């Protein structure tokens, strides 16, 4: 069997080096085409009329005036009279017209009669006693629990006790397996008793399972120190610069061609097929580049289906619906909020012995799950309760590292407060308790050391509130995080042509993470040719399917299938070339664009000559991931990382400025060090945004989002970005683990680290992100009052 293993350090010429991403030139020159840039011949412009109400019954819809407007070519009702709009911005009717202004005019002419209903857009702490008791789990709840990485034992126990509220079928089990459910969980779902859910409407508050492990009561009674606090982070939105949307056109009455902004090229057709009544095989999906997704672009959305239907009504003409900025921020996805009242028990020496939390949060209409708290630290003796708030703020979607940043803010905040109460340097508290972080504990130890050196932690750190000069308070904070990874399913077709040219076809996408570059580096390394010699085709359902880019699974998936394809292609080439070199195939190697005999470089053919031996027909090989028939597993799962922040707080104005951030991260074998570092730098910048600025602000009076624009939904800019230091863990202990994705992990810690740094600076906890001046000043004044009361 050929050796599929990754080459060792001595035999790597490209992998792990700093290589500029291959699609940079096309992007910096403005030639890169995105879905929004696609302009089909005779294209029509679609607009969506949206509900102005947070919740309302749609009583009637009159589209007659819009239909009569010159230039309007099609009208499509998305939600019929009788349905209920569930959030402000919910889609009601779509129109297509010859230009955008006419489509807007037409949307304004549609008369919708609403019967407004009472709504909830708050995610404030649920009133005492609110909420339904734990009941049987729905499909969504199980899905949530699995994506939240609820421990298997807890989930299986819950399923045994409370059952499920739906009939489990094979499709559902298959889906959950795809989400990463273990065999034990799958068995528990299959065996769970069915309980019908009685009654009609749900309460806005859903209590999820109370979870207890060990003996928390005893732990708190026996604790030397108990630290209490309130922590949390609000709902934020993805704010992709390229909004969600697509352009659809019917090639004939049975064949659809859709350009769509997506993280999931190979998975879109199956989602569109049923609502459009056409087989998935007849739908072609295409995307060259995507202007940001961050977890929010896996679906064929309602507006995408509407665009395809409008196109059909308009005789197949292309119809473009790209969301306007306000719609993008209102309806196209959000990271759920999470808040918690936490108590932590510890011994005098800093050993953490107990955790208690009452948490709540919202992911919109679905409520959302409990973040995985306590995070990373497997604290013995826990008692946890969570209430999910179902409200009318619009739906949540996966957002880089779903649920982990919130879990980090809550957990790392609580442990930081504990350290302050113990008069300990938090770095020492973290190091003291690494034993309970599980299998990555030694990695964390090494990473904390590297990070502390880069930050100058030991030299700079002062106890809380003791580094104030004039009106400037300075502070340090830290956080650690984890993520899974592994590689998604991916098929790769690699072709060597008789003239020596090479192409790769794969139905994947490059969401700005460097997927193109990853693929060509792996293929070039394996074939011993330059990366420029490989023609790469991605972003189309004409190519073999490859998974959606989510959960940091793309690098593992595409690198593995590419490696297997390239190794097999190389072996096939060797078989053809061997006679010409008077050698056995197994004695050949590909080096420096030649095929030559190992240990006898004089017997060689240059790449072109070698490929001419293939014959008249090109040689195409399919590589797959996973592929148990071609071991080893070239990917892995489970990484650890550290984030540290150094901040300055103006205690007169409450303004926080980040002065320096450090990220230390492992991710197995790194394909391109330059791009890996960029992922971390970008995550630090996002973390600064999350910590200081971002919040989806809902208006209680109207039920609408108050800041659906880029002036008041603020993102960090160049001037908010301080010195950033990124250190990737490489070499022994890391490289041999295989390739692991990096999309999620580095984005988790920055928010928590900055929040802790601010607490260290001002000597008081600002409970909730974002750390805006008003909250900082409120925390300071509360602390002053407490001091006065205590004095």
């Amino acid at each position: 069997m050929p050796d599929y293993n990754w080459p060792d350090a001595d035999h790597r010429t490209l992998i792990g080096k700093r290589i500029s991403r291959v699609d940079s030139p096309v992007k910096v020159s403005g030639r890169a085409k995105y879905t929004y840039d696609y302009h089909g011949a005779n294209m029509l412009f679609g607009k969506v009329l949206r509900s102005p109400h947070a919740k309302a019954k749609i009583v009637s819809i009159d589209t007659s005036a819009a239909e009569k407007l010159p230039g309007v070519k099609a009208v499509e009702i998305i939600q019929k009279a009788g349905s209920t709009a569930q959030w402000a911005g919910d889609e009601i009717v779509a129109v297509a017209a010859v230009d955008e202004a006419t489509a807007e005019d037409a949307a304004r002419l549609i008369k919708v009669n609403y019967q407004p209903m009472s709504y909830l857009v708050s995610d404030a702490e649920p009133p005492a006693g609110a909420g339904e008791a734990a009941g049987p789990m729905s499909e969504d709840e199980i899905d949530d629990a699995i994506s939240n990485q609820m421990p298997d034992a807890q989930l299986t126990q819950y399923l045994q006790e409370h059952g499920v509220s739906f009939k489990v079928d094979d499709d559902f089990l298959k889906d959950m397996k795809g989400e990463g459910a273990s065999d034990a969980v799958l068995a528990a779902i299959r065996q769970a008793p069915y309980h019908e859910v009685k009654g009609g409407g749900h309460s806005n508050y859903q209590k999820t399972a109370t979870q207890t492990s060990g003996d928390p009561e005893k732990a708190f009674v026996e604790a030397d120190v108990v630290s209490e606090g309130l922590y949390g982070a609000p709902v934020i939105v993805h704010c992709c610069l390229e909004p969600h949307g697509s352009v659809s056109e019917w090639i004939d009455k049975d064949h659809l061609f859709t350009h769509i902004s997506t993280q999931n090229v190979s998975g879109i057709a199956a989602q569109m097929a049923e609502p459009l009544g056409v087989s998935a095989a007849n739908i072609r999906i295409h995307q060259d580049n995507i202007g940001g997704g961050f977890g929010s672009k896996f679906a064929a959305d309602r507006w995408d289906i509407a665009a395809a239907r409008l196109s059909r009504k308009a005789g197949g003409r292309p119809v473009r619906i790209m969301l306007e900025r306000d719609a993008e921020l209102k309806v196209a996805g959000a990271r759920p909020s999470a808040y918690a009242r936490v108590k932590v028990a510890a011994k005098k020496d800093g050993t953490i012995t107990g955790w208690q939390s009452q948490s709540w949060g919202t992911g919109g209409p679905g409520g959302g799950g409990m973040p995985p708290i306590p995070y990373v630290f497997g604290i013995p003796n826990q008692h946890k309760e969570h209430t999910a708030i179902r409200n009318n703020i619009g739906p949540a979607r996966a957002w880089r590292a779903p649920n982990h940043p919130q879990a980090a803010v809550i957990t790392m905040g609580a442990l930081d407060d504990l350290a302050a109460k113990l008069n300990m340097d938090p770095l020492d508290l973290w190091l003291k308790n690494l034993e309970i972080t599980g299998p990555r504990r030694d990695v964390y130890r090494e990473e904390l050391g590297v990070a502390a050196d880069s930050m100058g932690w030991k030299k700079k750190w002062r106890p809380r509130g003791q580094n104030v000069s004039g009106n400037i308070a300075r502070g340090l904070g830290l956080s650690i995080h984890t993520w899974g990874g592994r590689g998604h399913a991916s098929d790769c077709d690699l072709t060597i042509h008789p003239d020596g040219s090479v192409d790769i076809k794969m139905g994947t996408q490059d969401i700005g993470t460097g997927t193109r570059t990853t693929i060509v580096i792996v293929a070039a390394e394996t074939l011993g040719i330059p990366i420029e010699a490989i023609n790469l085709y991605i972003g189309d359902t004409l190519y073999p399917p490859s998974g959606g880019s989510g959960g940091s699974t793309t690098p593992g998936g595409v690198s593995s299938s590419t490696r297997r394809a390239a190794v097999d292609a190389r072996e096939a080439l060797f078989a053809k070339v061997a006679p010409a070199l008077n050698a056995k195939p197994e004695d050949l190697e590909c080096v420096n664009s030649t095929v030559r005999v190992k240990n006898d470089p004089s017997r060689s053919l240059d790449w072109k000559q070698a490929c001419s031996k293939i014959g008249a027909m090109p040689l195409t090989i399919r590589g797959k991931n996973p592929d148990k028939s071609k071991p080893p597993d070239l990917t892995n799962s489970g990484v650890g990382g550290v984030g540290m922040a150094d901040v300055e707080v103006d205690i007169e104005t409450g303004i926080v400025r980040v002065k320096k951030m450090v990220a230390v991260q492992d991710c197995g074998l790194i394909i391109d060090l330059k791009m890996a570092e960029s992922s971390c730098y970008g995550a630090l910048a996002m973390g600064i945004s999350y910590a200081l600025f971002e919040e989806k602000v809902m208006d209680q009076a109207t039920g609408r989002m108050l800041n659906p624009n880029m002036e008041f939904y603020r993102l960090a800019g160049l001037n908010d970005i301080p010195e950033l230091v990124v250190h990737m863990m490489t070499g022994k202990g890391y490289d041999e683990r295989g390739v692991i994705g990096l999309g999620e992990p580095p984005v988790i810690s920055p928010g928590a680290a900055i929040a802790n740094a601010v607490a260290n600076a001002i000597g008081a906890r600002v409970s909730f992100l974002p750390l805006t001046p008003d909250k900082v000043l409120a925390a300071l004044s509360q602390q002053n009052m407490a001091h006065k009361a205590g004095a």
Partner: protein
Amino acid sequence: MQDHDPLKDEPKEKVDDNSGVSRRDFLKISTISAAAVPILGTKVVQAAGEPVKVYGPGKVPVELTINGQKHTLQLEPRVTLLDALRDQLDITGAKRVCDRAECGTCTVLLDNRAVYACSVLAIEAQGKAITTVESLMQGDILHPIQQAFVDNDASQCGFCTPGFVLAFKAFLDEHPNASPEEIRRGLSGNLCRCGTYHGIQLAIAQIAQKGA
């Protein structure tokens, strides 16, 4: 947005008789005298003794000079320069993101000054040299600013990148000896979601050191 005399650069050709007034001129007129509010059907109105051209409301001929090439279009006066570039001419380097002058992603140059193309009407851009990111590359050779973005991995999804590159060029053209700190401030009207700022800072340092 730049300060300029809106009258000085007006196009020479006749405009449609059934006309409205450009937004900039409307602002000018209404601040001068309420009596000068234009009446439909005139092609020129007097505003404080000055003639002001009036367009629309239907489609009017618009001549744009983009990257040295003249284009004649039929546009409603309400069409922005950004939409004219993207939807009429398929020049798509400038992106539409916020569509209200908040993010800088649609940056183009008007007579070498950076403007948000989402907030300039196409009719206002007549008679001016419009430069888009597509013109920076000479054959296969990237502009030094573009090369600095490549070298320092200053783009991820790349959607904001053309805006940054052009804003950078305009700022440097005006301030050839700017320090990295000054360039950073000069680019603070542009936003990135992937967080490529570290790479952009390195690109700034590279250009500040080597020049463009």
